[in-house]
């Protein structure tokens, strides 16, 4: 049978597309339900179309406050983790030093640790030190778990970088600072950017560690968590959809610019 034959030949493509559908489906649901007008407090069942939530995304108490707090924490956590992680990555790739193995393990372990373990133990530390839980404890925690991911991303890039390029710069009258700014940094930039983006995403979306160490401070994921108990406003779907669209747009625009630059350079 030709149909069966076709299915057999394209089995992998069909299976892959089904997986993709599985991954995209919740996003579509989130998007569709951002136009819902639910009857009760929970936005789980479709009632009727409405633009109310889109017209007033901050119309729910504390929602936009928590969103702004999450963005701030993500920004500072990204900055901190990227700077510290880049330094560690350079040291690991470019230098020989003692205790190398131990340091590599220390970098790897946070990634091999269930989040709840790190969350609970960090809270133990803060309780023992009598630290005030809030913005700063969350920021400290986020820098901690983002650090390893930044190191991994930057390390991969720096490892593939030819050390001769820096020698060439020094040979061409660039001092240590000039060499770093003019050559090392621009070439390592894609790795650093990848690490920073990963850190931002991890920090912005983190729930478990934040939930343990935030005290009474409420980040956006914590707001969503709380609303799952109290009632889910349509506005969270609006925020979720908006973020999704913005992210896809940014990626697509980036792609277009990159491919256009490539075309220009070749012509």
């Amino acid at each position: 049978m030709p149909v069966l034959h076709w299915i057999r030949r394209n089995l992998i493509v069909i299976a892959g597309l089904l997986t993709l559908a599985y991954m995209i489906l919740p996003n579509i649901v989130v998007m569709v339900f951002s136009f819902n007008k639910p009857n009760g407090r929970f936005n789980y069942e479709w009632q009727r179309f409405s633009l109310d939530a889109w017209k007033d995304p901050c119309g729910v108490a504390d929602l936009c406050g928590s969103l702004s707090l999450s963005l701030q924490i993500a920004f500072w956590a990204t900055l901190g983790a990227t700077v510290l992680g880049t330094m560690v990555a350079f040291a690991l790739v470019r230098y020989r030093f003692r205790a190398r193995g131990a340091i590599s393990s220390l970098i790897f372990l946070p990634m091999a640790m269930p989040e709840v373990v790190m969350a609970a133990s960090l809270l133990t530390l803060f309780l023992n030190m009598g630290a005030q839980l809030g913005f700063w404890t969350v920021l400290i925690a986020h820098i901690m778990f983002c650090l390893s991911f930044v190191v991994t991303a930057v390390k991969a890039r720096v490892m593939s970088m030819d050390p001769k390029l820096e020698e060439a710069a020094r040979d061409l009258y660039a001092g240590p600072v000039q060499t770093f700014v003019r050559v090392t940094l621009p070439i390592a930039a894609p790795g650093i950017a990848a690490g920073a983006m990963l850190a931002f995403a991890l920090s912005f979306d983190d729930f478990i560690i934040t939930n343990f160490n935030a005290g009474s401070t409420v980040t956006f994921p914590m707001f969503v968590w709380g609303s799952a108990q109290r009632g889910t406003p349509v506005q969270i779907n609006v925020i979720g959809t908006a973020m999704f669209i913005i992210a896809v747009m940014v990626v697509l625009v980036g792609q277009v610019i990159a491919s256009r630059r490539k075309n220009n350079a070749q012509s």
Partner: protein
Amino acid sequence: MSLTEAPPAPPSQPEEPQRPKLRKPSTRKRLVPYWLLLPGILWLLVFFALPLVYQASTSVQTGSLEQGFEVTWHFQTYVDALRDYYPQFIRSLLYAGTATILCLLLGYPLAYLIAFKAGRWRNLVLVLVIAPFFTSFLIRTLAWKTILADGGAVVDVLNTLHVLDVTSWLGWTESNRVLATPMAVVCGLTYNFLPFMILPLYTSLERIDGRLHEAAGDLYATPATTFRKVTLPLSMPGVVSGTLLTFIPASGDYVNAELLGSTDTKMVGSVIQSQFLRVLDYPTAAALSFILMAVVLLAVTFYIRRSGTEDLV
């Protein structure tokens, strides 16, 4: 040009007495890596390693919140914790393991598709794989409540096909609902950690030279044999890191169990969380968390040894 006729003095006769002036790299230079490492490593030592020490100590303390806790080397806490909560432990490992296998089965075809079949659609598909990340995973997990809702399209279809009869007989679902059953939790875990499986798989598949497939075909391998003997072995690093990146976070997760499950599907993460944040029984919470860490680290170490991929670090 008279250069060729007058070669400089042969090297065997130094022009002047040798001055053996030994140079050593300066101390400042040798310290550079340590300065680079210092802030990051200090951060991890203080906020990652030290907390683990504190937690270890907490786990052997006794006392109460009012009177304070004291180290009494009370190892009984571990025994009690295991006795009271072993179902949650086993459930966690079972759910996380199942979700990991499902992620591998679902993720491999998609990673393969992106690496070898997508052609000019490759970047678009990659974006679609990563894009869900940008919507908070909690919001997306809540969407599964809608998708799997009682009387929803998914449940209807499964009911009509009598799938639910089978799964409820196996204890995975109830006879007429999916939400608040183990299947819903595993489905959520699988969904949430799929990208962590697909990206490493894709990275290792993409590195495979397409000509290897042709070479295998040239050497009398059928497509299936080519996959088994060439593609799969070469993608093993991706399989290993993908399964680790899926299993480790899934084993400690409590979000899916809380949002999509019921009291019968609680995982160990939920217990740790409620002991810590609600019951305020710190020693038990610390002991549970330590056991989870030990189990996961042992499993990971054993797995990495077995698969012989130790260059992940």
